[in-house]
């Protein structure tokens, strides 16, 4: 046995409790994140005026229930957060092995606070600051050596629950073991994507991200492009989020952005891009006018009577935002091959294309020049932009994909012609004609060390069996057991097979169903267990409605009836296979995808899992065995008592097509069973699922037996649900068609119009599923709903 106590090695057990200083947006939401993973938190704020001294912190905790998107993974998590104030409750800090400071971004305030808490902090406690701009070494001034050894930066991105990036920032005196510990903790316990930053202004994410915005702004001005057009150009077409540049800015707040730019201007005086660290006059005018973005109701954009308006850069008046890229440029943005796309951009005469080429070139130029200063390798920069800014690929990756030497040549040309935003040459390493990129089998380029740096070898990453891969990095081998249209079955080792769907959004059509049958057959012969898993979310958006509707329209109900039955048989096959089958879920698991999940022997879910039987939204009911599984759960959850209260619970979930806001909620609702694991980091799913599957195998797994004695609510249950539906219909809350769906759903979930307490077998409920599903599928209104959802991605209420 190792001499080191397990407590020190296991971040889960080492941090059961934490303190967060500062109950502002970031502080409170960091507390919410900690609470979601089971850590109790003392949330500190200044004392209030009244008798209840910790009222300000309490109000911040209450406000967590109202944020959009929700900061709390589950409302009950708020119970783990205890309000506190700096005057009465400092003693409580003694208990906290981790203290995260997220107070106002003022050096003096932070340092005063550190001095004040120093006497009560446990010697072993780690103090981390969420500062986004103040140099760590300045904040560490005045700390004794022991304290400084356990002080560093933990920079969360807003909103902390949803932004994957967490920057771990050292300062000179920090103990490297502390950083290692936090990297493990933040990755496996908090589920964050950790990158090691350096103690430079803006760290990695904001240094690059803010410049990316500035480069867009200055180039837009140069080419005379309006903000709404710029957003059309700098969004998904170049691999960035739909909110692109200016809409993102409105969300962040123009004042916040201005403040960061100001910090850059002050702290990076000898930066060759120093001249760009300023806002264009029109943005400055908006800030001056108090038009700060979403929080003030107007910024670069505003909404007037459902019309989105954008500010005119010259007059500062608002006009409807309706700019569209030139068709010729839009055509270029649709090019799939990154190299061809870049070439098309730089060779186009169109100002919109030239703007994009200039913006990208300036960004690449900036990143190459700063790489050695701000990051250990190009890897950190690219991951920061993926995880912190929602880019599909980081700047180095997209440069590499576009053809390294070609892009480097283009940048050099611009510098020589004086077109670049800074007049410095690309670093030698970037201009090396033999260079093909920065990411490769040997790792990622470190400009500081002048060599490739392998992936971080922190033990926590051994839990990521298929880690996130940068463009240019070789893929993790997935030894194929079976590959055919719709599915890929591969060997995870230890005779555990992984089944992935290769369909769009992992929807389930006839190919996937066929694949499930064949994969099971093969795995049953050669493997110990099967894991249903997708490398990227969603787990599955459900049945392939396009295929279903086409079959229905072409060949009628006779053609789709066997499809439904086949889906049910696939579900049953998953459940009754002699292999233990584990669903490893992340992202959406909807409709048919949820039905598969329910039929697995066990579920392992990433915290960010959105699970629901949402068939009612497209005018249907679950008919892949989902209602049967729900009926089984109703009986189990009623523990021998009245099944109806559970039927009512499930009826509401299915009838309203509700989707869980997290795996914790899915578990509370019953989609996951009470003790099934929720994994904060989605990349660890496979590791946990494998352990789970092997445990089932080793414990002598036998498939569940087909039940013939399911207790159902019967006629009385249906009547109760119909009473509820009658009120909703008369009250105008649901449509006639909703009502029909509801009555049919009620009938199936209650096991048909049998005497209450009747025991039925699984086939009976499966037959009810099919009958009522097919009856609904034949209605015009259901077909209209399916068509509408396929076209718009949104539900139709008819």
């Amino acid at each position, binding site marked *: 046995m190792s001499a080191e106590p397990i407590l020190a090695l296991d971040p889960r057990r080492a941090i059961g409790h934490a303190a967060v200083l500062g109950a502002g947006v970031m502080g409170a939401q960091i507390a919410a994140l900690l609470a979601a993973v089971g850590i109790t938190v003392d949330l500190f704020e200044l004392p209030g005026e009244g008798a209840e001294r910790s009222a300000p912190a309490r109000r911040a905790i209450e406000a967590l229930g109202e944020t959009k998107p929700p900061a709390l993974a589950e409302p009950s998590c708020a119970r783990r957060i205890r309000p506190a104030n700096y005057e009465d409750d400092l003693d409580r800090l003694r208990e906290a092995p981790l203290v995260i400071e997220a107070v106002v971004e003022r050096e003096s305030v932070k340092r005063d606070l550190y001095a004040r808490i120093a006497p009560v902090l446990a010697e072993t406690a780690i103090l981390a600051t969420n500062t986004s701009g103040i140099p760590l070494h300045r904040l560490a001034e005045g700390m004794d050596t022991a304290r400084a050894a356990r002080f560093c930066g933990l920079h969360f991105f807003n909103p902390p629950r949803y932004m994957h990036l967490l920057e771990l920032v050292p300062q000179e005196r920090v103990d490297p073991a502390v950083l290692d510990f936090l990297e493990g903790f933040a990755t496996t316990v908090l589920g964050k994507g950790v990158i090691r930053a350096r103690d430079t202004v803006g760290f990695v994410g904001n240094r690059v991200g803010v410049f990316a915005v500035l480069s867009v702004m200055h180039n837009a001005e140069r080419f005379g492009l309006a903000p709404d057009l710029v957003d059309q150009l700098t969004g998904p077409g170049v691999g960035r989020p739909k909110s692109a540049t200016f809409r993102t800015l409105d969300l962040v707040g123009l004042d916040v952005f201005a403040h960061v730019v100001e910090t850059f201007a002050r702290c990076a005086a000898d930066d060759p891009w120093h001249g760009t660290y300023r806002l264009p006059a029109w943005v400055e005018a908006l800030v001056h006018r108090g038009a700060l973005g979403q929080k003030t109701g107007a910024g670069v954009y505003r909404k007037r009577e459902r019309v989105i308006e954008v500010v005119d850069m010259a007059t500062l008046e608002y006009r409807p935002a309706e700019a569209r890229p030139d068709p010729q440029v839009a055509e270029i943005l649709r090019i799939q091959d990154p190299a061809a796309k870049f070439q098309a951009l730089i060779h186009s005469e169109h100002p919109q294309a030239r703007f994009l080429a200039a913006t990208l070139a300036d960004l690449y130029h900036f990143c190459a020049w700063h790489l050695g200063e701000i990051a250990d390798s190009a890897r950190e920069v690219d991951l920061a932009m993926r995880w912190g800014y929602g880019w599909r690929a980081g700047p180095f990756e997209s440069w590499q994909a576009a053809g390294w030497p070609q892009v480097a040549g283009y940048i050099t040309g611009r510098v020589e012609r004086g077109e670049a935003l800074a007049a410095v040459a690309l670093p030698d390493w970037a201009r090396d004609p033999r260079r093909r990129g920065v990411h490769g089998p040997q790792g990622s380029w470190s400009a500081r060390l002048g060599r490739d740096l392998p992936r971080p070898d922190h033990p926590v990453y051994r839990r990521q069996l298929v880690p996130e891969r940068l463009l240019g990095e070789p893929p993790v081998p997935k030894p194929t057991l079976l590959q055919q249209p719709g599915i890929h079955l591969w060997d995870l080792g230890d005779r555990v097979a992984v089944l992935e769907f290769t369909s769009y959004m992992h929807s389930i059509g006839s190919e996937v169903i066929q694949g499930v049958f064949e994969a099971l057959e093969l795995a049953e012969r050669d493997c110990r267990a099967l894991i249903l898993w997708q490398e990227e979310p969603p787990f599955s958006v459900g049945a392939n409605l396009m295929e279903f509707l086409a079959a229905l329209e072409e060949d009628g109900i006779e053609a789709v009836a066997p499809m439904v039955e086949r889906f049910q048989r696939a579900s049953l096959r998953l459940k009754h296979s002699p292999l233990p089958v584990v669903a490893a879920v992340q992202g959406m698991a909807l409709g048919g995808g949820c039905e598969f999940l329910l039929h697995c022997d066990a579920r392992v879910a990433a915290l960010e899992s959105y699970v629901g039987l949402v068939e009612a939204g497209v005018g249907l009911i679950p008919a892949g065995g989902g209602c049967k599984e729900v009926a089984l759960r109703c009986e189990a959850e009623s523990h021998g008592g*009245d099944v*109806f209260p559970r039927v009512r619970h499930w009826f509401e979930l299915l009838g309203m097509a509700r989707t869980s806001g997290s795996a914790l909620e899915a578990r509370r609702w019953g989609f996951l069973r009470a003790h099934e694991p929720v994994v904060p980091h989605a990349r660890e799913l496979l590791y946990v699922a494998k352990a789970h599957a092997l445990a089932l195998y080793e414990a002598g797994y036998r498939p569940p037996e087909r039940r013939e004695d399911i207790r159902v609510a019967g*006629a*009385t249950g*249906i*009547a*109760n649900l*119909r*009473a509820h539906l*009658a*009120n909703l219909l*008369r*009250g*105008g*809350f649901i449509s006639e068609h909703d009502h029909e769906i509801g009555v049919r759903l009620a009938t199936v979930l209650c096991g048909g*119009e049998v005497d*209450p307490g009747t025991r039925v077998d699984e086939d009976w409920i499966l037959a009810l599923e099919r009958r009522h599903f097919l009856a609904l599928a034949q209605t015009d209104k259901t077909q209209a709903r399916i068509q509408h959802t396929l076209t718009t991605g949104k539900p139709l209420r008819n």
Partner: protein
Amino acid sequence: MEAAYIVDAVRTPVGKAPRGVFSATRPDDLLVHVLRGLLARNAALDPGAVGDVICGCAMPEAEQGLNVARIALLLAGLPETVPGVTVNRFCASGLEAVAIASDRVRSGQADIAIAAGVESMSLVPMGGNRPAYNLRIFEDDQVGIAYGMGITAEIVAERFAVDREAQDAFALESHRRALAARERGEFDAEILPVEVVHRVPDPAQAVCVERRRAISHDEGPRADTSLEALARLRPVFAAKGTVTAGNSSQRSDGAAAVLVASERGLRRFGLQPRARFLGYTVVGVAPEVMGIGPIEAIPRVLERTGLKLEQMDWIELNEAFAAQSLAVIAKLGLPRERVNPLGGAIALGHPLGATGAIRTATLVHGLQRHGRRYGMVTMCVGTGMGAAGVFEAVG
């Protein structure tokens, strides 16, 4: 036929449900309290002479199940020879109990009877703990049976063109009258204050400790409401409806007991009557417009008692909803100032099966205190009925 006299009537304060002052108080305990109080106030009466205890309850199950009348009378210390029966006519249950007790006396079968009503909507929700509808109500197109009370109020509002503003104004007036009445002490004679006992764990001592709190006023009336506040509430029962939590009766907990005697009973125990029971009528209407019940019941009971509407000095019209109250008032031309002069269920609360007995208490004390002669208690009833009882002050 003999005359039936109301000798006395007492009630608990009415608490809010499900999180009010009686949220953890058992309804049978509330009933015990009013039975004891009634007998204590009429100490000349030999409890063994009580011919029957008839208690109304709208959801007679769980804490108020198993014939709560019999259980409570035994717990209240009445002799075991005194029988008890629980009756259910939903919201008219308490008035039904008064009518049955009076009829028992009028028909000469008893000289003394106690009518009562009890309901804890905190502990037994409306609809009961385990609703179990009959599927036939949908097959036979009797869907009105399944309608919640709120929906029926929406239908009445539509059919009788009662708009949101009128409903909110009516609700505000109910609160105003209730608060003014409390201020004037109008409820003092009828209310028996209750000492609520909460039993909570004391982990330090590892014992269960009792926390006591005296309750002597109705919890429902709000001084802080206003037309603006009422207007802000969203309709709950219909997407584009007008019925809100603010212009509906409040869910409540409470109990009341009424002592009824024949002339012989009065003489035997030297009791002074407050009022005489004149008659009672119940009529059925369509379930989906149950709120209009009083429109049918009031003319019928007046006809039976040979009285005219103009002779009614005081009408206790249960405010199930402002919408149906206004429809009844408009349709029958009830004089607004004589309807619920002390406020109604929107402010005072509506503990379903207890309300009839509670408002009987309010009426008989009120008629006497104000020197008025004729009065009426009337209400609409779920699944479509209207009930009305007429009383005359005496002495």
